[in-house]
């Protein structure tokens, strides 16, 4: 097995200083074992000279020895550096290609999001059970389907990952607008899990959470760590009757990013993930 040196630079690409991950690296980057260089979207587009190596602010950045923490959470909107929709689209294409050359990437751009994504609730409830054995997702039906749902039925816009929707009308049958998703709300309260690489925290775990429920979460997040190109994720689960029921995952830690322990998770999880990544690469070579 070849031993590969871990990256010697962490390049933070960010759009929003208030993003929880960007904020930790901007304010506490010195806690990591290698230097953190922060570059905003505007600096990336207007100042950096990009090619096989990047040059910026008098420095040369060699992708092969650099870890990228991709927090370009949104490249949309009129205030960004792009002068047209086509420029923004071409930047997104370029980003997806360019990040492949780096030694480590925290979040690989997808067609849905520049920081990667598992898509809408419907995508997640359809695709993740194929990937992770044992995962439970809410019973659901897409808009237009007449399949009957029994229980506490809610209707939600599937692209609103942080919305539980509204309780459906009493009458059975198709519910809501075209594109809405009806689901049976699982039992128990909602809680969140934050993951960076193989490290997790459950900062708002239900008070009576049992060991088997915790084991289920650990098993799920290990599976996700093994298969996902997105190393920084947040999950929402319902407590459920037996094991927790998965609700959604998002590359932006909207809830856990504000809770105690998140900064430590980013520092520890990222450090470990970057080092483990170089070991995984070495093992494959």
């Amino acid at each position, binding site marked *: 097995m070849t031993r590969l040196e871990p990256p010697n630079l962490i390049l933070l690409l960010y759009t929003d200083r208030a993003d929880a991950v960007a904020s930790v690296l901007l304010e506490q980057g010195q806690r990591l074992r290698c230097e953190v260089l922060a570059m905003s979207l505007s600096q990336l587009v207007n100042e950096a000279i990009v090619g096989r190596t990047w040059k910026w602010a008098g420095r040369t950045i060699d992708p092969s020895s650099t870890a990228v923490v991709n927090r370009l959470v949104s490249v949309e909107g009129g205030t960004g550096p792009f002068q*047209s929709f*086509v*420029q923004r689209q*071409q930047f997104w*294409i370029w980003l*997806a290609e360019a990040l492949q050359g780096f030694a480590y990437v925290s979040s*690989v751009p997808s067609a849905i999001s520049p920081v990667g994504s598992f898509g809408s609730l419907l995508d997640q409830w359809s695709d993740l059970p194929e990937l992770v054995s044992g995962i439970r997702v809410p019973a659901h039906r897409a808009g237009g389907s007449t399949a009957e749902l029994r229980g506490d039925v809610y209707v939600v816009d599937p692209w609103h990952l942080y919305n539980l929707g509204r309780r459906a009308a009493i009458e059975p049958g198709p519910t809501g607008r075209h594109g809405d998703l009806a689901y049976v709300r699982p039992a128990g309260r909602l809680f969140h899990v934050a993951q960076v690489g193989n490290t997790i925290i459950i900062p708002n775990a239900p008070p009576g959470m049992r060991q088997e429920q915790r084991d289920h979460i650990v098993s799920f997040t290990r599976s996700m760590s093994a*298969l996902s190109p997105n190393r920084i994720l947040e999950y929402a689960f319902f407590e459920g009757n037996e094991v927790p029921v998965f609700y959604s995952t998002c590359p932006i830690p909207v809830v856990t990013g504000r809770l105690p322990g998140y900064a430590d998770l980013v520092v520890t999880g990222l450090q470990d993930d970057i080092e483990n990544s170089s070991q995984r690469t070495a093992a494959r070579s």
Partner: protein
Amino acid sequence: MTSRIVANALLRDLSFCDGAAQRTNAAHAFRFALDFEPERVWPDLAFDTSSPLARYPVDARNEVAETIGAVARVAGTGAPKALDFINAHMETALVCRSDAIEGASSASNRELVGLCVLTNMHAPADRILVCAEALLHESIHQYLYKTERDDGNFCDLSEARTYRSPWSGNRIPLHSLIHACFVWYGLLSLWSQLARSTADDDELTPLRENASRVMFGFSFVRQMFAGASFPLASVEPDIVAVIDRIARIVPSAGPVDLEPSTLQDSLRRWESGAWVGQLAKSLQRIGASEPV
């Protein structure tokens, strides 16, 4: 089983680029029939194509027919191979209107080779380009249906799971996604060829936007195919190989190939005209694939 020869022929047949194509003043027309009063109930649409409610009023039909005629003239003068392709594969277009569908739309069905439905073609402001896209899109489906009928399916048609198309954003079955890769490749070729045959900025802008949209989708095809849940084994290997070739080469027509500079400079140069040449070069590289 789809052979390598058949797979490579797809790339050749769906390439409408022709550097030697000359604008001519010859009359250009489609040969397929327009059916404004279809009796057929299309099997999988949100409205009944045979319903009188789906018919254009008689005095509104000429406007739609004129739009389709204008598409023939645009294709005939700027992309004659595309005109020939549509004429070779489309037999009848059912022309309908419906409030059940938002905006213009088109449809094909594997059981109805040679036919398509064009819905609400009067609606879009840029109706000539929208109608051109619809007609070539559906003609490519006819060609793909025939190829599969004669040489074997490209993938397992019984695969029931759906995948999100990086072009339309819709979740579609595996066989539709595989068809989509070839449909969008053909459309990219059309936009590229039309762009090469005009110097008019007003004509180039929508072509550039269309081409960029196709490139964007191809940028994420390889990621989708590499996904842990994607049933790659259910797709014929030579079909995977040609799609992989397209998806590797098409995104390189973007600003990524330009010399080292700021991204803003590269994006500006690309957007202001370099895209036409780069795209043509990329498509030639794909079309020149002998063994994939």
